[in-house]
Structures are given as structure tokens and as C-alpha cells.
């Protein structure tokens, strides 16, 4: 089982409630390995008079028992269980905020719309002339020699197709939206084929984050829900792969720069 990874961050991190920075720090810790990454704020950088212990506890993966707190709005209204603390040695003295109850998160001056990035993960979108064909049932639903291959650390390759290389009759926009800090907001489509609706099988990023600009407007399919993926005519033997967090932890080969006072 991968261990908790705790990295001092040099980024200024702010958590805003009703426009007030309840946490504002340049000495955050980035905590990796316990679900989605999160920031821990030194107590000194938290507006403690707006935090009230609730007496409740919860259990968190790799951390154990945590003590829950309410955040108080300006008029005293509580946001229930919006903050937590722990006696876990490496996080003692820090305050953590739940993601959703905070109105706005900032990394430096950039809005952080989703939980933070893992600094040991990258996303490379690379153009490829390898032929990619996707089969659903007995139909080839996408066929391209100019897809963008998206390599995201720990995840199977995703293939992003130009709209012209997808059977146009099968896509029907759905209402689903999901967010990813590495790519942006995904808009989903159902695939309607021979009377069967495959809900949210396809997604696209109309306006991806700048680092992923090259997938804008392209369409990806959920590999694991297809019947076959052919690359240059050869079927992939596995459509989906489990994430390998162990590899990420083992790859922790960076030596943090030494600092001279």
C-alpha cells in the first residue's frame, strides 16, 4: 500500500469563504496518497475565530481519526464539518478544509476549480498517425489516423478523435459535466446505436486548461466500455488498466533543492 506523501509547497494557497480568506498561506503542505490531493494550512495562517470544533470525528484513509470543525460565516451560520484537524504526527498543527464548502480556492492568483494537482503526475497529449479504430457491437464508431494520444500518468492511453473521424449520426449531447484539474470541464455525449443508448460514453473538452489546449474540441470514448480498440489493425488486449499508485510512490526520485539561508 502506498504511503502518505507530504510535500511542502511553495505556492500561495487561499481558501475563500464569502470573499474572506479563511486560510491564506505560503507554507502549505500538499498531501498525496489519501484520495484526492489536498492542502494542509499551518494553524498560524488560518482565521481560527471562524472555526468551531464540532465534537464529531471521522476516519480518513492513511490518516486515521480526524476531528471535524464547522466554519462560521460572517453572521455565525455554520458550514457543517467544513474543516478538520488530526493528531497524525506529520499533520498535527495544520488545518485542512473540505473541498466543496469553500466558495473559492486560489493557487497564487489562479482559480483552482477542482482539487489540486499531484505534482508527480503529468499529462502529455501527443499527435499520432497510428490508425485507431473503435468497435462498439459490430460497428466501427471512430476511425482516425490523426488522433491525439493522451498519456496521463497511471491511466491507460485515451484517444481523442477529430469530430470528422467519428460517425456523426451516433452522438447525442448529454447533460453530464465532470471536472478534472489536469484537463478542465468535460462535456459528455450519449452514443445511440441501433436503438441502444450508451449513456455518457463520449466526452469532450470544449475549453480545456492551457496545458491541454491540443485536445480542445476532440472526442474521447471510455475505453473500458467499448468492445474493441484496434491500433494499426491490432486489437489491444486490455481496454482498461488499474491505476498504479505504487509506481508513482516508487518514482519519488526527486531530490528537493537544498536551500542556503
Amino acid at each position, binding site marked *: 500500500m502506498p504511503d502518505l506523501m507530504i510535500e511542502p509547497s511553495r505556492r500561495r494557497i487561499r481558501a475563500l469563504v464569502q470573499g474572506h480568506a479563511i486560510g491564506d498561506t505560503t507554507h502549505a503542505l500538499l498531501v498525496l496518497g489519501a484520495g484526492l490531493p489536498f492542502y494542509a494550512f499551518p494553524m498560524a495562517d488560518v482565521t481560527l475565530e471562524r472555526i468551531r470544533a464540532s465534537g464529531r470525528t471521522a476516519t480518513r484513509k492513511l490518516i486515521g481519526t480526524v476531528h471535524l470543525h464547522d466554519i462560521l460565516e460572517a453572521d455565525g451560520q455554520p458550514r457543517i464539518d467544513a474543516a478538520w484537524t488530526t493528531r497524525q504526527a506529520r499533520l498535527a498543527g495544520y488545518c485542512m478544509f473540505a473541498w466543496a464548502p469553500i466558495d473559492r480556492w486560489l493557487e497564487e492568483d489562479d482559480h483552482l476549480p477542482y482539487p489540486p*494537482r499531484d*505534482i508527480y*503526475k503529468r499529462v502529455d497529449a501527443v499527435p*499520432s498517425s497510428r490508425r485507431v479504430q473503435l468497435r462498439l457491437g459490430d460497428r466501427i464508431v471512430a476511425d482516425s489516423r490523426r488522433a491525439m*494520444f493522451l498519456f496521463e*500518468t497511471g491511466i491507460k492511453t485515451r484517444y481523442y478523435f477529430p469530430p470528422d473521424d467519428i460517425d456523426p449520426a451516433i452522438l447525442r449531447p448529454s447533460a453530464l459535466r465532470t471536472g478534472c484539474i489536469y484537463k478542465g470541464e468535460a462535456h459528455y455525449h450519449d452514443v445511440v446505436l441501433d436503438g441502444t443508448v450508451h449513456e455518457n460514453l463520449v466526452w469532450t473538452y470544449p475549453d480545456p486548461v492551457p*496545458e491541454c489546449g491540443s485536445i480542445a474540441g476532440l472526442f474521447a470514448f471510455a475505453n473500458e466500455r467499448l468492445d474493441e480498440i484496434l491500433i494499426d489493425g491490432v486489437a489491444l488486449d486490455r481496454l482498461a488498466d488499474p491505476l498504479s499508485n505504487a509506481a508513482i510512490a516508487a*518514482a519519488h526520485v526527486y531530490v528537493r*533543492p537544498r536551500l542556503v539561508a
Partner: protein
Amino acid sequence: MRPVIFEPSARRLRVMFNGETIADTTAARLLIETPVPVYYFPVGDVRTDLLVPGAPFEDPRKGRGRRWSIMVGDRVAHDAVLGFDHPAADLPELGGYLCFVWEGVDHWFEEDEEIFRHARNPYKRVDALRSSRHVEVLLQGTTVADSRSAVFLFETGLPTRYYIPIEDVRCELLRPSDRVTVCPYKGTARYYHLQLDATLYENVVWYYPDPIAQCPQIRGLLAFWNEFVDAIRIEGEAEPIPVTEFSHRPITTRPAA
């Protein structure tokens, strides 16, 4: 012993030399021993008919092997290929693979994109964030940059770099330089010298006129070596001077012409 990762890569890799494709594989592995990873090619995906054997060598971590040269037409890439016929006990799979000295060959491609300098490490990211924190750069007691609208570049394993808009830099002090370097995560960097009184501080400033697609936010912004300026102050407070892989090559100075 230091852990080494030898993980499969999903990327098609190609290596070119003198117009020939020397290796073309969809079954590469990435060896991650240091922050700079190395692609390994299955022997069967390498044009071994173009290789001639060279000297044996021993690597303290990976085992014993042999170097090979590539001969294509009138050109020879001496010792540009390495193989491990007696890999270390914990890395037996190395035996079936060959790797290339990056600069020994002409071109590298990941899928259809040419890549430069070295393989990208999948466990390293580069985040560029806009910041209104006050950044001041001091060299020889002179404030050479003063900004509240820098882009802070956080690159895993390196100190924060501050990319500053030209209007916030004393650009009348900049002098052209021919230096060009390439970073696989950011693109091709160009440099400036900086002149203070009669002294030229060589290549102390760099910028990316046309960064790669993954790093568009730093286009045209100017960065200074944290390691070699007197101080970078953030909100009035001097950042500690970092010691990095670059520290052993300090910037040089010479009298201005």
C-alpha cells in the same frame, strides 16, 4: 540500493540516424533511475544489423554490458547504443533491451511529435500560475526586475522560477546572447546577458519565445537564475538561494565591450 523503475510505456518511440529509422517500437520501457528517464527498446525492434560491437562497460547499479556503434552510410555514431548482457540481479529484464545515447542519434519521436533533450518523466509536472505576489530580482545591488504580475513556474524537484513580463524588467540592461538550450518540458530557451556598469553578466536571463503546447503560459516572459542573482525577494523577503544541478556552472562575467 536505490529503487529503479522499469515501466512499460504506451508511446510509440522512434529513433533516426542518417535518414534511417534505427528503432521503432510500441513496446518501449522507461527506466527511471534519476529525474532524467531513459527509453529502452526491445532488441527485436532495433536495427541490430546496423550495429557494430564496441567496448564492454560496467554500471554500478544496472550491471555489465556492452556499447555498440551505429553505422549508416558514411556516418558512424560511436558508442551510441548500450546493452546489458549481464544485468543486475534485480533488473533481469534489462537484458532484452537496448538504449541510445540521446545526442548520439539525429532525431527522436514520441508518436508523431519530435522530442528533444531527453525523455519526459511521467512523474514530473510543470505548473505555471499567475501571481500578484511582489517579486524583486537583485543583481549587484541593483533591482533588475520588479513585478506584481509574474507567472510562478513550479516544476517538480526544482526551485520556483519567476517568469516576469518585460515591462517589469530593466530591459535597457539586456544584451543579446547566442545561447540556446532545450528543455523537454518547456521548449527552446533563448538568453540575454545583463549589463551593469562595465560588467556583462552572461546568460543570466532566459525566455521561451515559443514554448511547447503543454506550457503556453510562460511565452515571452523573462526568468532569472535564482542560483546566481544576489537575491529574489518575494513580498519583500529574500528567497533562500537554492542549490541545484545547475549550481556547479555559475554564470560568468566579462567586461562589456
